[in-house]
């Protein structure tokens, strides 16, 4: 036994020796420049944000260390709490709607038809286009008197809406833009999933005379679930952080009806220049995103377990 233990390191070193000759210096020099950049523009801001959040830090006045009081202030800031609510509503809608529409679109794009590549390029244009430019056109389309959307509604007999100009409809209207913009990303991810599905289950389903809906519900959907989960996760991260569209169309208005955490963070940091408090919001905001991601992972795990338990 002791001989075995003693011989192991020696054997390992003789084995590793010839390999070492084949493995000259190391790959570190390739990584160092990027490491410096990442440290300076990504890691440094993270650390510095945490430090600032512990200080009373306003542009133009001296800073003082205040411990966790910025965080305590958050718990009794009605505008922040309201923003959390807006963010959650906005996020849930902006995840669910693109997931449904994106999956349906992927099923269509999975078929073979002429001009498929080109039309796929057209289909993904909304998510690649400059968000501010798009927001500007949507603002014109939402215009209550001259906007084309109210005209289209009038064609089918629906009364004119105030869209982003009314507190009750502003978030659904922004979600409409977000859904229009990001359904293509879900479509692409699910389309990748569809391409990876084997054909056998479909063949046997056809022999058994399953309907289109049955095939989708019991074969396609379970098989693309991992891809839907990834799409949902990415969508959640982007929707929570959504800024350009909301800022350019409503700036959080009317009043504060569409003020999400990100928009509120912007005003605190760069309208009031309250950088300490803004940093605290940024930290809590980041933790909230991590929490949401953890909840989604947990839900997915639970789903897998119940599937195994039920023998599916």
């Amino acid at each position, binding site marked *: 036994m002791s001989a075995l233990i003693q011989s192991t390191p020696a054997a390992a070193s003789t084995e590793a020796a010839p390999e070492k000759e084949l493995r000259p210096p190391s790959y570190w*020099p390739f*990584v160092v420049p990027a490491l410096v950049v990442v440290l300076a523009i990504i890691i440094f801001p993270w650390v*510095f944000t945490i430090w600032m959040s512990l200080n009373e830090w306003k542009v133009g006045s001296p800073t003082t260390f205040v411990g966790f009081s910025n965080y305590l202030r958050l718990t009794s800031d009605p505008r922040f709490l309201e923003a959390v609510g807006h963010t959650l509503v906005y996020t849930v809608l902006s995840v669910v709607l693109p997931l449904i529409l994106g999956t349906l679109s992927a099923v269509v794009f999975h078929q073979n038809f002429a001009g498929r590549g080109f039309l796929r390029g057209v289909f993904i244009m909304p998510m690649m286009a400059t968000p501010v430019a798009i927001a500007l056109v949507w603002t014109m389309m939402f215009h209550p008197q001259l906007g084309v959307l109210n005209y289209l509604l009038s064609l089918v007999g629906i009364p004119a809406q105030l869209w982003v100009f009314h507190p009750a409809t502003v978030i659904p209207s922004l979600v409409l833009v977000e859904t229009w913009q990001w359904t293509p990303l879900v479509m692409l991810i699910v389309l990748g999933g569809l391409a990876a599905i084997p054909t056998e289950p479909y063949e046997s389903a056809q022999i058994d005379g399953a309907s289109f809906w049955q095939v989708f519900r019991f074969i396609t959907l379970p098989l693309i679930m991992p891809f839907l989960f990834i799409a949902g996760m990415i969508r959640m991260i982007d929707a929570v952080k959504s800024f350009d569209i909301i800022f350019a169309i409503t700036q959080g208005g009317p009043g504060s009806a569409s003020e999400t955490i990100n928009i509120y963070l912007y005003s605190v940091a760069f309208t009031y220049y309250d950088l300490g408090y803004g940093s605290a919001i940024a930290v809590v905001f980041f933790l909230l995103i991590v929490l949401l991601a953890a909840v989604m992972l947990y839900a997915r795990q639970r789903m897998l377990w119940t599937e195994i338990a039920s023998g599916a």
Partner: protein
Amino acid sequence: MTPRQIIGKIGLWLSVLVIVSPAILFFLWMLSLSLKFEVDNAAYPPVFFPDRIAWKNYADVLASNRFLTYFINSLIVTGSATVLALMVGVPAGYGIARMAAHKSAIVILIARITPGLSYLIPLFLLFQWLGLLGTLVPQIIIHLVVTVPIVIWIMIGYFETTPMELEEAALIDGAGRWQVFRHVALPIARPGIAVAFILAVIFSWNNFVFGIVLAGRETRTLPVAVYNMISFDQLSWGPLAAAALIVTFPVLLLTVLAQRQIVAGLTAGAVKGG
């Protein structure tokens, strides 16, 4: 073709039409707005095909000398941020893939989750201390927050799929690490670099939030310039839509031309900065 197949074909084309039309109709309406005189843009019911075409909307936008400045600013910021990101990110992706240092990619995932504004607060202060505000340098540097993770992420994925045999053969022949990278790995990775380049250009070009804080009157990029136009002349839709279309046109063109690369890149990493 049996009747059933014909119905299936018609159904397929109808569904294609339904899912593509929101994108097509939106951009056609954008084009229509940008080519109409104010009378037509303010008409109700809306005019889809105007009798007279207002080319002057485009002429007005392009003729204003500021717009040219902002266009050049955008070119400089996006160009520099993309080239710098490729210079550090391509070797890094190579190194990480060859060392199989997958844990380091976690930094990139966390960077993906972090809200863009939380980079802005500390870097804004840093640029202020360094006296860089008022130049394009802060925007070039902060756009690296967008471009560097995209490039590293895509290049890790790409170098992992390229074969090692050629590199090993070159090493045995006595080539150095750097030579192997430069003459063996890099040429093979060209398609991956193209994907990284295209996505970095698009997400940097589109970026708005960094510019709105860091740009001064002379240093605006196009998205910020267009946003500022909204607040100034809310009512002249023609020139506004024309400006919006000019800003986003390069990206739309790239999307249709390089859709294969974009799809590959987005489904591989789905990395978006900010």
